[in-house]
Each structure stands twice: as structure tokens, then as C-alpha cells.
């Protein structure tokens, strides 16, 4: 298959030396993005990769595309400007948990609410790495860090909950160590029309090593995560014998063939369902329930950038002026001879 692709992953790779720490999860996501773009086939010159500030926000320098490494938290607003000006471009926002959800929280929720056709990749390592180890808005309550030596006394954002709360229409969760699925998810995010949010659980090998270990390590992954695919049964487990069922108004994990549960009871994932209630329940699963990975929500909706340009066309169809002079002459004027 690879031979038939118009572009190869290397076409998206810049000549810059990648400066992330050895062992950082960001390396893997970068490689997945190169592969995903080759798969989707957007020409590198039609791609604009925007970022804020933070470790992950260095990513645009490693892409052989148009790129803009901007200021802390404002990437979503700048990307909104790029996409609104130029809906023809494939616009990516590379951001981290601090950049996106603390200083940039307002821009993030509004970009999602407006449904600007941005591909947002949120690198979540639950820590501030570039400033060397402070807790972030996704750090769990009680988390001990340099700025919380006695543990934090605040609850974290769950990116999925925030995205859906901001009326987001695409949310996926990926892990840095699963290259195949992360590549597929990024490709799906590129194909989705509208704001897509992909949360990638990445490891910070220096300041927060092993933060996602309980989910991402091979030995736990099968039992503690479920990979959701649209149209497929919600099954997981090392032996594929566990499933998610609806128990009253709650989700429940069951073993198929036990306690009277059969495969028929297991829910089928519908990522395209407009109502986001179940998507939110799936995204919030934790503790005894497996953590949901994959594309949790993927719903079509009108995009802001296209609507802006459509409205211009509609107005132009009704109003004859095309130049300032024509417009001014059509107003209340008088002549002095």
C-alpha cells in the first residue's frame, strides 16, 4: 500500500534536530502524525501546524509544513484565525495540558464551541515539563510536585468532559505507546470536519515518569482500557471476555457468560450519535471501569470557518457593491459642484 501513497511520512519531517528528552512520549506522537498525514495525503504546503508554548508546542519545528510556534495558551485563537481566513488549509493545533487547559482554557473552549475545523492534539502528561515540574490542570487531587509539595487541593479537568461540555463533536483518546492506533486516530481527526480534540496520554520521562503506567503498560492495558470502535461491541480484556453494558442509567463492566450476561447485552459503540450523554459516560470511565481509548465521539456539524465564507457569499448575492467606491456611492451622499 505504502507505494501508492502520494506522500511519504518523511515528506512531513523537517530537517530540525528533535530536542525532546530521550524517552519522551512526544517523539512517538510526532512519528504517528507524519504517518497519519501521509495516509490522509494532505500536501505538506497545504498544512499549517500551530502551537502555543510548552514541550509539545515545539512540534511545528519538526514538521516540514507551514508552522507557527506562538505564545502561551493562544494557539487555539491563532489557529482559529488561520482557519477562518483560509478554510482550504489543514490546520493543526499542537498543545499540552497546561497550554490548552490552564492559560489557554478560554480559547480552547471557544474554538471547540464554534466548531472551527481544527485538528487539536492535546498532549496530556499531567505536568508542566518546560518549567520543570509543577502540577497542571489535569494533575489528580493530592498530586505532589514542586509547586504542590504537600499535594494539590484542587480537582483536575478531564479533557473529554471539558470538550463535550464545550459542545465538541469529535473527541478521541490515544496513548503514546500505541503507534498504530494513535496514527489511525490522528488520520481520523484530520478527516473529521469540525473541531477535533485528540487527547494523547504521554509520558514525561523526567518530571512525571510513569504517570499513565497503570493504563499504558502492556501488562495492564488489556484489562484496564477499552478501545472503542464505531459500530463494534464494547469488548475488552486479555481474553476479550469483558464488555460494557447499561445498568439502569449507569455503565457497568461485566464478564460475558457470567451473571447471566451474554454478548447481546454488550453495548455497540455509536460515535456518530448526536446526543453526547453516552459518550460522556464512556469518556469518564475510571477506577473499576476500563479507561476508554479510541474515537469516543465523531459527529458531523456545520463548521465555523465554512459558515463565515458562506455568509459572505450569501450577502454578496444580495448586495451589489464589490468595491469601497461602489459601496460609498450607494450610501447617503450629496454632491457639491
Amino acid at each position: 500500500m505504502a507505494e501508492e501513497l502520494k506522500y511519504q511520512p518523511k515528506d512531513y519531517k523537517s530537517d530540525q534536530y528533535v530536542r525532546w528528552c530521550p524517552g519522551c512520549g512526544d517523539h512517538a506522537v510526532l512519528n504517528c502524525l507524519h504517518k497519519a498525514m501521509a495516509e490522509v495525503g494532505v500536501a505538506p504546503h497545504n498544512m499549517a501546524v500551530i502551537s502555543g508554548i510548552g514541550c509539545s508546542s515545539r512540534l511545528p519545528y519538526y514538521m516540514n509544513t507551514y508552522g507557527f510556534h506562538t505564545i502561551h495558551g493562544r494557539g487555539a485563537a491563532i489557529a482559529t484565525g488561520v482557519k477562518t481566513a483560509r478554510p482550504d488549509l489543514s490546520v493543526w493545533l499542537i498543545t499540552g495540558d497546561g497550554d490548552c487547559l490552564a492559560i489557554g482554557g478560554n480559547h480552547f473552549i471557544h474554538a471547540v464551541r464554534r466548531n472551527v475545523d481544527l485538528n487539536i492534539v492535546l498532549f496530556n502528561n499531567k505536568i508542566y515539563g518546560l518549567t520543570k515540574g509543577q502540577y497542571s490542570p489535569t494533575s489528580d487531587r493530592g498530586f505532589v510536585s514542586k509547586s504542590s509539595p504537600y499535594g494539590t487541593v484542587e480537582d483536575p479537568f478531564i479533557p473529554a468532559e471539558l470538550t463535550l461540555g464545550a459542545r465538541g463533536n469529535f473527541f478521541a483518546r490515544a496513548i503514546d505507546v500505541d503507534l498504530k492506533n494513535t496514527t489511525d486516530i490522528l488520520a481520523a481527526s484530520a478527516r473529521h470536519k469540525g473541531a477535533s480534540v485528540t487527547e494523547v496520554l504521554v509520558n514525561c520521562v523526567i518530571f512525571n515518569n510513569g504517570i499513565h503506567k497503570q493504563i499504558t503498560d502492556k501488562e495492564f492495558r488489556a484489562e484496564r482500557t477499552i478501545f472503542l470502535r464505531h459500530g463494534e461491541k464494547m469488548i475488552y480484556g486479555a481474553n476479550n471476555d469483558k464488555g460494557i453494558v447499561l445498568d439502569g442509567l449507569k455503565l457497568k463492566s461485566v464478564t460475558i457468560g457470567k451473571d447471566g450476561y451474554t454478548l447481546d447485552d454488550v453495548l455497540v459503540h455509536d460515535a456518530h450519535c448526536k446526543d453526547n450523554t453516552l459518550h460522556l459516560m464512556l469518556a469518564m470511565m475510571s477506577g473499576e471501569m476500563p479507561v476508554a481509548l479510541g474515537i469516543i465521539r465523531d459527529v458531523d456539524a456545520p463548521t465555523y470557518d465554512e459558515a463565515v465564507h458562506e455568509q459572505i457569499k450569501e450577502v454578496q448575492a444580495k448586495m451589489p457593491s464589490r468595491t469601497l467606491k461602489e459601496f460609498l456611492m450607494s450610501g447617503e451622499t450629496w454632491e457639491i459642484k
Partner: protein
Amino acid sequence: MTEQTKVTTLEKVVVRFSGDSGDGMQLTGTIFSNLSAIFGNEISTFPDYPAEVRAPQGTLSGVSGFQVHLGSRKIFTPGDKADVLVAMNPAALKVNVKHLKQNAIVLIDTDSFKKSDLEKALFTTDDPFTELGLTGVQVVAAPISTMVKDGLADFGLDNKSALRCKNMFALGLVCWLFERPLEEAMHMLQTKFAKKPVIAQANIKALTDGYNYGHNIHASVSTYRIESKKAAPGIYMDVNGNKATSYGLIAAAEKAGLQLFLGSYPITPATDILHELSKRKDLNVITVQAEDEIAGVCTAIGASFAGCLAATSTSGPGLALKSEAIGLAVIAELPLVVIDVQRGGPSTGMPTKSEQTDLLQALYGRNGECPAVVLAAATPTDCFDAAYWAGKLAVEHMTPVILLTDAFIANGSSAWRLPDLENYPEIKPNRVSNYKEDKVWKPYRRDKETFVRYWAIPGMEGYMHRLGGLEKDYDTSAISTDPANHQKMVKTRQAKIDKIADFIPEVEVIGDEDADLLIVGWGGTYGHLYEAMEIMHEQNKKVALAHFRFINPLPKNTAAVLSKYKKVVVAEQNNGQFANYLRSKVDGFTPYKFDRIKGQPFIVARLVEEFTKILEA
């Protein structure tokens, strides 16, 4: 009462319409100024409304005013004090006492001057004129409400709708005072209420009734005649500064062949720019009402990166929020127009009032060595040219340009001769296609003479590149923390801005070449300073005026002009910001300073007094 009509011919006259914020005074003032302009008068107007959307009816805080200055010769300001005041209620009278000439004509609606009305405006006696010490004014007291209701009895309107036409009765009366034919006003009302013919007719009836009433009582007051004058031939329209700014941006985008993009967040007194440009989708303008001030400038920077002529509009507090992002545009060397319609500060300050207090913020209010171009518009109509220049310098020199206007010129309007756009200077973006050197192109390679980098826009094959807020290497454009390189880049960014002095006009000195006093100003005070100079000329004093539109960089002849005159006074509406800036730029420059920071326009008479003192010192 005298028996004959006294017709006084005047060169200029100031009329102030004042009433409750729901009384329609802005419309009344606008119609009156438009028909005076059509009649051939010079006009300058200024609306003065309360910060509150609707304060309690009849109270002092709810008074809304509109001042028109008309004349047979050049008018530059809305005027200091009113010759004629229309006061629709006692609160309007009280608030405007300080804006009245001693012998002014005051027109009141007696139906709104009852005991309860007087109490609402905190009068303690039943004679408001004596209480306010207004002994010299000529009062035209008309039972306007009653007459309007009677006049509209046949229209089938409810009481409230009928009373809404009071303002037109007052307008009719003023039209009679100034011998203004009503046809144009009728035409305007028909256009305004095209969809409500009954309301249009009711307003026209009230207007006519007011005029006729004036005619019938004409013996009681003076009437004024302002000769019309021959203005330069052309097509004219009435425009305020915010509209002119919007049109200037559109014109610049058209000339540059770029799509105009505005990212903005609502803020008084700049919001009308967002309103106007949002309407101009017919002219292919994109507007984004952003989630906050920062997003306003950031969406604009994104659009600039994507190839638009991008702008953001704001006022002082918003400019403060945008500083970091403007710094990004400085280091990324992207074109950007930032419009700051200045208002009273600091903090929220006085949002509806005017000041020139953001100059130093515009010049220096960013982290790092962060030079940007700073321009200031002089009059409502000059906002057009200033915005055009802002767009031109931004795209031709790949830099943010901050355009300072202010609440006074943004809301003030005057008759504007439509520009001959064909004759405006070209705007040529420095596109990457201009790059002709042998070395392979990199985003920070620059023109050797202007230091301007070449603009490559996403979608162009072969020009993929990364910009960012991190310092870049002069040659390779890669991230660099090399000390010598940083020094070079800082100096280069400064040199690029300084070089713009070669591409802007020199500052013009108006008035006496051998003046004993040079008045120096910048921005929206032009009209007042000019009038002060004119009056001093009439008094045979030798004065000249140098008014700056280009502030950073300063025009090349600045030092020569400032050192030519023995006495120089810098007059501005702040604590001496421009004076101090000039001192930092021109060795040995020690001007007199005149500053007023009251949120109100300068008063010409005060300027003359102060300048005369300096002259005679």
C-alpha cells in the same frame, strides 16, 4: 418682546441637542447636521452620551447630548460652548449649564418642566433658570408634548408613540431658527422609517408643526443665518472617525489585493469599527467577534500568517491585554494593524470619554525590545487616510502598526469628500516572489535596504517554513540563543522600523514661517489646535502648528522643525507623554507643555489664553 425679527448673520454657530437618553437626541442632531452639510455649511459634530444604557428617566445621569458646530468657513471642532441649546427636560438644562454661552438661546419643552420633573433633576426651586444663574439666556418655552399630541391626534397613534415625535418638533423649531428648508429632513425621515409609513408621516408632521410654531412666534428671539460656502467640488458624505477607520482599512486591503480580516472584542468606544466591518461582507471582509481581547489580536495574527491584511480594534484596556501577542507579531515580522480608540484611563477609567493617554503604551508597552510603528489620526475624516497608511506600512514593512484614534474623533463626524482612490499610493506586499538572491530563501532573509523579510503564505509550494516567538538565527532562520545573533536581530528589527522614516511624509508646519511660537500636537486635538492658531492669527500673533500623524518612526524633519522656533509648546491630553517622547528623540529639546486630562476635548478659548501667556512670557 420686540416687533421685528432679528436675523443675525454668523460665521459659525454651535447647537446642542440634549435630552433623556431615550429622547432621540442623537437622531435629531444627526439629521440637523446632515441637512446643514447639504445646505453647504461646514460641520463638525460630537455625540456625548452617558455610560449607562438607560439611566432612570429625567435624571442627571441619563442625559444624552449631540453637539453640532456649523459655519461658513472651515470648522475643525464641535465647538466650545453652545449658542443654541435644546433641553428636552430640566436634567438636560442642568447638565449643560457649563456648555452654554451667556446669551444663548435655550429651547425647552414646558410640559417636561413640571414640579416633578424639576425634582428628578434635583432642582430646589420652581425657576430652574434663576437657580442655575442663567440670567442672560433667551428662553423659547414651548409646550412641545401637548402640541405634538394635538398635532398627531388624527394619526391613531398611542400616547407613547406620539410623544416619540417630540424630538422632530424640536428639530423643526431649530430649522426655523436657522432658516433651514425642511425637504431634506423629510426625505431622511422617509428613508429612516421606510418600513413604517405612519411613523414617517407622524415625524414629518411634528417636524412641520415645530417649524410653523417657530414661524408664528418668530418675533421673540433672534434667528441665525449661516451663509453657505463653496466647498471643494465632489461627492460628500457624513462620516465619523470609526467609520472612516473601517473604510480606510477596506481601501488598503483593496489596494494591496488582500482580503481584510478583523478580529475584535467589543469595547467602548471602538466597537463601531467591529459593527461597520461586520456589515461589509459585500466587500469580502471577514470579521471574528472573538472570546476576548487577546483572541481578537491572535485571530488577526493567525489570519495575517494565512495571508490576509489583518487588523484588530480596541481601546486602552484591550491594548494592554494584546501586548504579548503584538510582541509575537513583532518577532514573527507579520503585518498587523492594531487600532486603539483611546478613552479615559487608567483601568476602566472613563470609557465614553476621550484622552490621549495610551501613547507610551503603544510605543513601549511590550516586553523586550519590541518596536512597532505608531500612527495617530487627526480628525474624523483623517481616520480614513491614517488607517490606509497603517495598512500600507504593515504589509509593505511586515510589522505591526498601532493606529491611535480617540473617543472624540471616533464618534465625532464631519462632511467627508469621497476620496479619489485611484490616486492613493500603491500598496505592494513584499511577497516571497520578490526574493531574487542566490542563497536559498529562508523566512528571515530580508531586503538589503529596507530590512523587510519576504512574505510566504501557506499553500505556496516550496516555501514551507516555521515562524515563532523564539529568537531566530539571522541567516538560517532556525531557533537561536547565540548572544551575538540576538544583538544583531534586536538591532535589525529596530533598524527596519527606523527605516520607515524614508517612506513617510515629512511633518508639515502650518501658519507663520517666522512664528514666535510653534504649537506641537498629535492625534485628535488637531481641530482645536488649528482653531486656536487661527484665532491668534486674527489677533496678529505669529504662531505656527506642527501636528504629527507619524509618531514612530518620527518624520525625518522632526528635529529640524522643533529646533527652528524659539518657543515650542506641546499640547496634549495626557501628562506630557509626547513632549517627553520628543525630548528623548531630539537632543536639547525643552518645550513648554500644556496638558488637560479631563476626558473632554480641549477648549479653544483656553488654548488661546495659555498659548498667549507662553508667547508673552
